């Protein structure tokens, strides 16, 4: 679907400037349209501004060190260093460590599995499938891309979690792995569509050259077409990871939402997105926790922004290499 494609630069048709023709109406229409163009810039600037404005204010009342760890008295009244996200308590703890770990514990397995499946499906669509099959499979993938994430979240909660528990005998029914599988449903179509686009942008004469040299179809795909479109494949994986980090409803419904410092994907975790979604509705605005949540949002925004930036660089690299 076009959602995942990155806007391209295309040289517009040149119209020779002709002063007699520039009526007032033309000017008005152009400035009106330009005004609309500015909205996109304004929106991204405002998001940036309002997110970070509130987020930075968290540092006014909470010392930066407490976003990593804080001390708490244990049962024997001995001070102990803990890394916990526990904003509602007599001694509120705001460690971002479990949240960031949680986000990556869902996003990394999801990206791994989804890249495998998505790139495979994309190669199948672009290089293996016949025209008929392609016209059936491609819309099916697009339909999957159109399923609202809350629906996938519900499916994970109601059905998939039980299947996973029966297969892996996990202690917790809702865990990071269930969330990762759910997120796969969202990003497989993204990766498959982008891979398909990238491989179809590889010029046909490369394939014909390989085939003429005696390579069979698989050798052509894996030695010629895939290397030529490699940057596009990397970009698709990165964009998928950006989506996985930002996915909210699925992880909110399927990961169990317990903020823990762990590296075990079969334990309940809590991601940055789920924390915001679960807590912002119940906090008084302007308070300490409210600002801490905006700080979590700023961190999340920074992560996804960085990942998407890398993806965009990969896409423009491919475009340059293929001289499109």
């Amino acid at each position, binding site marked *: 679907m076009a959602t995942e494609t990155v806007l391209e630069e295309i040289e517009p048709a040149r119209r020779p400037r002709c002063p007699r023709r520039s009526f007032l109406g033309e000017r008005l229409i152009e400035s009106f349209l*330009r005004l609309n163009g500015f909205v996109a810039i304004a929106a991204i600037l405002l998001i940036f501004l309002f997110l970070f404005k509130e987020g930075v204010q968290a540092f006014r009342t909470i010392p930066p060190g407490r976003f990593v760890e804080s001390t708490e008295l244990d049962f024997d009244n001995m001070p102990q260093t803990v890394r916990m996200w526990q904003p509602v308590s007599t001694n509120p703890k705001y460690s971002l460590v479990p949240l960031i770990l949680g986000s990556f514990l869902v996003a990394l397995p999801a990206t791994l599995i989804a890249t495998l499946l998505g790139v495979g499906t994309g190669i*199948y669509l672009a290089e293996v499938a016949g025209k008929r099959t392609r016209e059936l499979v491609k819309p099916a993938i697009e339909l999957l891309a159109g399923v609202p994430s809350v629906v996938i979240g519900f499916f994970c909660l109601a059905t998939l979690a039980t299947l996973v528990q029966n297969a892996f005998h996990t202690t917790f029914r809702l865990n990071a792995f269930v969330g990762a599988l759910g997120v796969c449903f969202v990003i497989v179509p993204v990766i498959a569509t982008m891979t398909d686009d990238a491989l179809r942008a590889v010029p046909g004469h490369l394939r014909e050259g390989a085939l003429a040299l005696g390579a069979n179809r698989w050798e052509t795909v894996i030695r010629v077409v895939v290397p030529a479109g490699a940057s596009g494949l990397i970009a698709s994986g990165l964009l998928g990871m950006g989506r996985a980090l930002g996915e909210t409803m699925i992880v909110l419904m399927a990961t169990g939402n317990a903020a823990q410092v762990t590296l075990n994907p079969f334990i309940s975790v809590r991601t940055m997105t789920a924390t915001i979604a679960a807590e912002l509705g119940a906090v008084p605005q302007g308070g300490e926790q409210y600002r801490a949540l905006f700080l979590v949002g700023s961190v999340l925004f920074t992560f996804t922004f960085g990942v998407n930036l890398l993806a965009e660089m990969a896409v423009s690299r491919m475009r340059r290499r293929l001289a499109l």
Partner: protein
Amino acid sequence: MKRRSAEIIALSALRGIALGVLLATLLMLGSIARGGASSISWEFLTAAPIEGMTRGGIFPAIFGTLCITLLMIVLALPLGVCAAIYMVEYAGNSGLSRVIRASVNNLAGVPSIVFGLFGVGFFVLFVGRSLDRVRGGGLLFGQPAMLWAAATLAVLVLPVIIVNTAEALNAVPRSHREAAFALGATRWQTVRRVVLPQARSGILTGSILSISRGAGETAPILFTGCAYFLPRLPLVHLSIPFTGLSIPMVNPLDQFMELSYHIFIMATQSTDAALTRPIQYGTTLVLVGLTFLLNISAILLRVRYRRALEAR
């Protein structure tokens, strides 16, 4: 011989992966269809929830979804299409166009929950509260409402609309524009009479896809206007002066119930999630049906449009 068998194995692995993805999709949709089919009835679609939301229908949620989607279209579609026309037809490859393009691409990658935060911080607290201060009196604009939820969704679908529209405009051959210019048409005449008529169905397809994306989103509206349960529809009665008549109108400053939020809240926060499972499945099926209706119509429209382009 070894090369041949490697080829066979690899190609069938690719076929298997694609088939697996399709089967997983079918498994998901099948489980939802099977669970939801029994709870769909006329009453379920047209009645309000009763008995503490353990029985009854989901009409307020359907109504809210339609209202907010329409409001989102009004706010985002003209803006997005005009911005895309400016980018493709006017700005070309100038520095400004490059900045707009970068903004659009970045906007498309912002997580949906961040849009939710933005909606609260900007629309509700900044714009709403400022309006209230100017207006004087109590809280009217500065609280979660349908208007702000729709505005948040509009910002979310804006990049999608711009990307899709720009793609449709770029599909119109450049030679057509050059021919129009050669005949002495101005830029706007060219856009209006030559480019837009050809790009129309492409723009429509893209718009439908973006609308379906917005209609299914939950995270951005969590804090900007959704309600768990409302005993009434978000309506006001506007009286027509001098006639004594009043017409019901959707009140954009009221809160509302929404399908995707209804699914989320019923599945995770209700007191007895197991008891209301049929309602949850039914609501999910309705939401899937709604988005599929939009998506399938867009896909069919595009098939026709592609054929028309190829025939030319």
